């Protein structure tokens, strides 16, 4: 919603994407379909991507987005846990704190990355290729870990 209002242009389009994302998320949670959550989150990411590329907000907003995105995902998956299973009282608080700490860490990581991205270094094909390589390597590492440990 914020993205749609704060965007300089194409506000309606962003609003549509955001509304579709939230509706998808609400439907997935209501129907308890875990498979629908990533798609809704991807749509939400699409809205954010649109906003970020159109409006170029500051470091704080970017970090907030990173943290909020992780918080949304964590809470969505928590909402999909079996309804009848009651948590021990000590566990409820612990998990709540852990969820917010994860979101805070995500925001901090996002801020750190954005801060690094603002550092003025010589640009060029080599640096860009290094960035692509880093992204691919990260994904490959996740895929490898999932294959070996999963």
């Amino acid at each position, binding site marked *: 919603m914020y993205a749609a209002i704060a965007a300089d242009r194409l506000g309606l389009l962003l609003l549509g994407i955001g509304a579709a994302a939230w509706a998808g998320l609400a439907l997935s949670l209501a129907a308890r379909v875990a498979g629908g959550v990533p798609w809704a989150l991807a749509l939400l990411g699409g809205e954010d991507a649109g906003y*970020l590329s159109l409006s170029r907000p500051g470091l704080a907003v970017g970090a907030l987005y*990173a943290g909020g*995105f992780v918080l949304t995902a964590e809470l969505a998956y928590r909402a999909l846990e079996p309804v009848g299973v009651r948590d021990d009282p000590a566990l409820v608080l612990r998990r709540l704190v*852990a969820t917010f700490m994860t979101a805070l*860490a995500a925001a901090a990581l*996002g801020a750190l990355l954005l801060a690094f991205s603002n550092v003025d270094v010589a640009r060029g094909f080599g640096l860009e290729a290094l960035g692509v390589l880093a992204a691919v390597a990260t994904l490959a590492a996740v895929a490898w870990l999932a294959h070996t440990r*999963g």
Partner: protein
Amino acid sequence: MPKLGAYAGLAALGLLAALALRRPELAAAAAPFAVLAAVGLAAAEDPGLAVSLELERERAIEGDVVELTVRLSTATAFERVELALVLPRGLVLDGADAPRALRLRRGEERLLSFPVRCAQWGAFRPPLLLVRAADRFGLIRHEARCEAMPLRVYPRPEVLRTLLVPVETQVFAGNQVARQKGEGSEFADLRRFVPGDRIRRINWRASARRNELWVNERHAERNADVVLLLDGLGETDRQGSTLVPLVRAAAALAEEYRRKKDRVGLVSLGGMLSWLQPGTGVRQLYRIVDSLLESGIVSNYAWSGIDLLPVRVLPPQALVIALSPLLEERAGRALLDLRARGFDLAVIDVSPLDRVPAGRTETDQIAFRIWKLRQASMRSRLERAGVPVASWAEAKPLAAAIEEVRSFRRYPVRARA
């Protein structure tokens, strides 16, 4: 692992979008997902999760509360371990809410107890425990399941102060007063003293009156053979099931006759003809009750009459107590056949007719009336043959039905063809 896949996918999508759109903010939003997935996977190790489920005992009485113990141990730490207890119908948790989630530390062992109430009698399949353990980030899950031992819940027996006294007794010592004279405590008659009689059997008052020695004669105390005949032919497994009261009454009678040292046997008429030879003792009682617990409905059109029963199952001079809803013509014929063979027979009618609605349509109501008339006709035929028939429903005590049969037997009825 739906969460792990989703996080990896979101990270990939975000990083690709960041490259395509040349926006570092997207990489900043996607990077935490990649880091979470990587950290979660890197920390994953063999869980060493061990689960066991134990029941306090294998046998219980209906209404008892049995302790169900869950033992959990793990080699690694689990942030959240979900437990789901699947109990068979007839067993319910007594006051506790079993499905719960807890945290397990590395190397920790936890014992959880759940009281389970046996709401119904029956032979139950083992309770099942499903365990799902998730790591700190909920990315990797481990699942386990285990079963406890099966549980046999015996029906709560009815309290019976009096039982049907068999007309004939057997040769072994027991608690039934036999018609024959012998060693016992019940007075039978007086007779003149003959050499060899014990001094303590002399009736001094009668002897003083007659100026010669007279002695007391007593009835022998013997055991009896009791055969419980269960008629499951009218069972429908719908409203007005007769199986439950049949089994409850049979268990109560078996227990009480066993207590009186009588030999108790069981014949089950149903889709399948089954039987247990008469026997004594606790072991025989368990055999009977176990057989009753396994009573069920078997559809079978092949009629196996009592002609097929081995002679030892229906011993001569046995008291046969038939527990029947008197709904099936075949069962009625079998009972009349037993009577014709000279068995001491009593019938306890567990008819569900008073609990079954007559139906809504006129046809249903006519059918219901015909059904009732047929039952009354069968009952009348049995009574004319000299067989006492008493009605019993679970709502009233079984002792009342027993008393009804006793009062019928107290006054001889001439059997009519």
